[in-house]
């Protein structure tokens, strides 16, 4: 096939772009995707007091400010070499669990659900949350809205602000929890658990009970055997806020387990001339291109990866569902055999939703979460620190270096979606090859099946900003072997 130079996305387009290159017979030769990337974060941070970063970095993402706030605060704790009091840790984790449950619910009902409930090739006008509610009933919609509202009430109180949180600072938190609020919110957390169970039921009734969907999930077009990364607690159970980073190979065996501060010994970033976004890979395996398998350093950090990289969930209902998940998809309920099917990420996400809800209830039910010792005053000379949390879309690394007065001299981030850049590219290409066939007209429905591979990662590329239009406009170009565009699809 003729080599075709792909120009990087122009700023004016400002949206995601997928280019699919067809062979002369109409089969797929290659596929690429490109997104705009933010510039100048490092420079922006230089010269600022490091304690400002937990407040500033919440602005990096209009979707998961909570994740940046906490990764940044943890990096600040590390910069000052301070251990935060147990209550402060519980309060941060409580806020984070509530956020996680709400965020995963939004993805399942709004983004992923419509493909399955309404059907992958249903007309675009119906394939959305409104179409979903029309099918599953208005009660489901009301539960989603109520769940969000309750979660936001807790996040606003514990985070100090509803959107851009301010409560986590080096050494702990500034806002404690009153027992009267705790009593009220125990009820909310019980609702969250019930909502998690309800969501699992929706998933089973609509997706798992439908053989066509299970076949789709298990199909080779949506499968890649890669390494998997996720944070685990001391028992190797999934944890979103704290623990070691564990990596397992495509065979499910532990490949690496490391502390946040050592991440650069394990992760390196490959650069391609056609993309602003870097491609992180496992240093000890090496970059072999956009390919899967044990010889390729490509790893994934997603809800599915977290389940694969762990040995289970730390709460009972989520653990039971974890076992059902692995038993159904691999026949081994221990989870030691990884699930490689990208679309199973949706199921993994719902298991995480249930875990987050259960964990929030555990923390809220613990009266010691109202203790008043919530900050340790940092006394060490600041220098360098790494903070890591699991963001909903993948492991989030914040790394700061300061002078001895705490003024930032260097900063580096690896955000959730960036971890998955290589895997997303591979998934798009493979799905395109699986669903676009010679001699068959490429319709919007077929391209949606390509997009489904992409959407399973819940990608958030700008990691930046709002937008009134809301959805990231996505353009798909079909090109002939000479690189000429033969068809353009736009979703906005």
């Amino acid at each position, binding site marked *: 096939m003729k080599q075709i130079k792909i120009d990087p996305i122009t700023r004016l387009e400002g949206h995601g772009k997928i280019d699919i290159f067809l062979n002369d017979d109409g089969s797929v030769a290659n596929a690429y995707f490109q997104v705009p990337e933010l510039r100048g974060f490092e420079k922006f941070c230089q010269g600022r007091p490091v304690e400002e970063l937990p407040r500033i970095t919440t602005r990096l993402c209009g*979707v998961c400010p909570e994740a940046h706030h906490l990764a940044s605060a943890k990096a600040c704790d590390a910069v000052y070499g301070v251990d935060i009091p147990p209550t402060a840790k519980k309060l941060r984790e409580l806020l984070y669990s509530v956020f996680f449950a709400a965020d995963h619910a939004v993805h399942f009902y709004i983004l992923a659900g419509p493909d399955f409930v309404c059907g992958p090739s249903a007309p675009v006008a119906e394939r*959305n949350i409104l179409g979903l509610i029309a099918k599953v009933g208005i009660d489901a919609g009301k539960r989603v809205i109520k769940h969000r509202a309750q979660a*936001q009430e807790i996040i606003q109180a514990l985070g100090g602000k509803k959107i851009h949180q301010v409560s986590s600072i080096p050494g702990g938190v500034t806002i404690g929890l009153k027992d009267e609020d705790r009593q009220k919110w125990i009820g909310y957390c019980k609702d969250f658990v019930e909502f998690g169970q309800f969501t699992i039921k929706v998933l089973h009734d609509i997706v798992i009970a439908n053989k066509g969907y299970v076949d789709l999930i298990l199909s080779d077009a949506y499968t890649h055997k890669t390494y998997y990364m996720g944070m685990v607690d001391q028992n190797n159970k999934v944890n979103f806020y704290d623990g070691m980073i564990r990596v397992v190979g495509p065979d499910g065996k532990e490949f690496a387990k490391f502390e946040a501060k050592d991440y650069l010994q394990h992760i390196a970033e490959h650069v391609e001339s056609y993309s602003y976004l870097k491609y992180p890979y496992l240093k000890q395996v090496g970059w072999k291109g956009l390919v899967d398998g044990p010889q390729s350093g490509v790893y994934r950090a997603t809800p599915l990866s977290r389940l694969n990289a762990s040995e289970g969930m730390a709460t009972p209902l989520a653990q039971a569902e974890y076992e059902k998940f692995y038993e159904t998809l691999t026949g081994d309920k221990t989870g030691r055999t990884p699930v490689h099917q990208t679309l199973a990420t949706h199921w993994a996400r719902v298991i995480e939703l249930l875990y987050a809800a259960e964990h929030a209830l555990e923390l809220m039910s613990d009266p010691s979460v109202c203790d008043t010792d919530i900050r340790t005053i940092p006394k060490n000379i600041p220098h360098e620190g790494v903070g890591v949390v699991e963001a909903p879309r993948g492991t989030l690394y914040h790394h700061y270096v300061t002078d001895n007065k705490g003024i930032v001299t260097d900063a580096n981030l690896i955000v959730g979606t960036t971890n998955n850049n290589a895997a997303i590219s591979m998934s798009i290409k493979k799905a395109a090859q699986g669903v676009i066939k010679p001699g068959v007209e490429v319709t919007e429905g077929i391209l949606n099946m390509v997009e489904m591979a992409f959407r399973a990662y819940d990608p958030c590329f700008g990691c930046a*900003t*709002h937008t009134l239009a*809301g959805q990231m406009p996505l353009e798909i170009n079909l090109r002939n072997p000479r690189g000429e565009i033969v068809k353009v699809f736009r979703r906005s």
Partner: protein
Amino acid sequence: MKTVILGLGNPILYDDGAGCEAAEQLRRWVVAPEVEIRTASVGGLRILDEITGFDKAIIIDALMTGRTEPGTVTKMSVEELSGDLHASCLHDLSFSEALKLGKMMGMMIPEQITIYGIEVADPYTLQEGCSSAVLDGVGEAVKRIKEDLVEEH
């Protein structure tokens, strides 16, 4: 009439902060108790949270069509709002879908929603402030919103 003026955008993403800057300028001028000024760096459903409970919403946001000069101010209705606004994340509803969802769920959505878009040049560089052409647009949007408010009250 309870009105919310909502400046959208990211104040640390250079021109992207145009909507927030306009809202902050209006904050110094608007004293009417029935008018509330807010800013937010969010999309879709989270925008809905900011305008629910008001009779009227005036939303100011950065706009990137590439068809007009930076700083050009465009007033539009929700119906006129297309996917033209700049990129964000896949993980959300479009604003018009969020509005439909809110109405379906019986939330109190403003009857009147007006959008002021300010054409921007660079909403991708992490930097505070806006370029001078965009700041002129901010001034223009502020002037027009003031006129609207004066006419109404």
